[in-house]
């Protein structure tokens, strides 16, 4: 019997001894983790999209906990999450402007001309390699839907050869911005209703030949803007969204309607 009891007793006894020793040591050497980090982590969306620039939501949570990142760093969560995190961290809630991605091109199949018929892989990056894509305008949306494919939130649709972002679904993760070979997707404030939806730096005549809704650089918008929100460079008007009051006058005056407006009744407001 002792041939069994002794080894079992020795091994079991030693195991028990070490176990007790370790559990005592774990209390003595316990490392206090910041409970705030865990709470912040819970408040974050958990999509691990990386839009904040940190390796996943865990990375951002510990950065916020250390104070290395602002409480508003998560663009996906928007103000709701920022407020929650601000509560946890004991900072005053900062109002964040929600931003959404907007495709700055309206040159769909009817309005923009093609220089050749593309019959290759349905991917904008592939098409772009072939002489900058099939569109006559070298700045325009190619419409193969690469942005749609990379969108995890089903917010992008291709309508008549041009990508359109559903701003209700967009979380500003910037995945489409990184994927677009033409770099025509930009983040625009959610409330912004007037946007110059053209990225063409070509001169007016070239734009007119290629597309019926391009910015031809006539500067009518610049002259008519009551708050001087426009900057004009390389034959292209740009709106400073911080100054713009969404009055809609520019969209109304724009001869090619390159300035898109989400305002319901432009004419009444303009008057």
């Amino acid at each position, binding site marked *: 019997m002792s041939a069994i009891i*002794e*080894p079992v007793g*020795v*091994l079991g006894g*030693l*195991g028990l001894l*070490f176990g007790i*020793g*370790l559990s005592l*040591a*774990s209390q003595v*050497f*316990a*490392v206090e983790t910041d409970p705030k980090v865990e709470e912040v982590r819970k408040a974050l969306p958990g999509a691990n999209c990386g839009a904040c620039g940190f390796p996943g939501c865990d990375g951002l949570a510990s950065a916020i906990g250390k104070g290395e990142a602002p409480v508003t760093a998560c663009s996906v969560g928007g103000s709701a999450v920022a407020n929650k995190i601000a509560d946890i961290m004991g900072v005053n809630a900062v109002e964040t402007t929600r931003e959404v991605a907007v495709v700055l091109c309206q040159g769909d199949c009817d309005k923009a001309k093609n220089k050749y018929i593309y019959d290759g892989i349905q991917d904008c990056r592939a098409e772009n390699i072939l002489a900058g894509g099939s569109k006559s305008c070298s700045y325009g949306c190619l419409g193969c839907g690469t942005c749609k494919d990379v969108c995890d939130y089903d917010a992008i649709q291709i309508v008549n050869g041009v990508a359109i972002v559903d701003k209700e679904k967009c979380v500003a993760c910037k995945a489409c911005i990184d994927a677009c070979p033409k770099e025509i997707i930009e983040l625009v404030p959610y409330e912004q209703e007037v946007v110059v939806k053209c990225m063409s730096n070509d001169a007016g005549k070239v734009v007119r030949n290629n597309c019926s809704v391009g910015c031809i650089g006539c500067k009518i918008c610049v002259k008519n803007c009551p708050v001087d929100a426009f900057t004009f460079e390389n034959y292209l008007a740009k709106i400073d969204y911080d100054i713009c009051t969404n009055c809609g006058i520019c969209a109304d005056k724009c001869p090619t309607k390159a300035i898109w407006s989400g305002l319901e009744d432009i004419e009444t407001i303009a008057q």
Partner: protein
Amino acid sequence: MNILTILVSTVFVNNFVLARFLGICPFLGVSNKIETATGMSIAVTFVVTLSSIITYVIQVAILDVLGLQYLQTIVFILVIAALVQFVEMVIKKTSPTLYEALGVYLPLITTNCVVLGVAILNIQEGFNLIETIFNSIGASIGFGIALILISGIREQLEPVDVPEALEGFPIALITAGLMSIAFLGFNGLV
């Protein structure tokens, strides 16, 4: 056998890494930077010395008395595992940077054959407690010297234009082999 002989023997002649080929895993894994190599050497020194003392006491006081020498391996592994856990807790508390630098290699000391090798060799050589302690210290100093030497060489190799097929681990293995040959020169010293 006097203590000096034991030290010289374990550090140079019978260097555990370069002559006995034990502990190759951390030797190649943690040898990218001198800093982490030093940290690893210190951690191994601590674990080896402490575990040798404890295993020696257990061997003499329990296993030999009860005639359970056949439990040697499993009991020694138990001791080493518990000790590594303990060291991990201490390092995590006292030096988080070292803890992160050592990363997965710290728990890997558990299965590091140097630790078990030293513990078993101490018993096989019939050392007494003092000799055991110095043999363990010598063994870990030898391990540390080998680790720091190769990490120094690998740091120097970093900017060198190595043929593409030999980049990274292949050149490290060649380096290790050359170092091992160099250490053969200590043969017959003791």
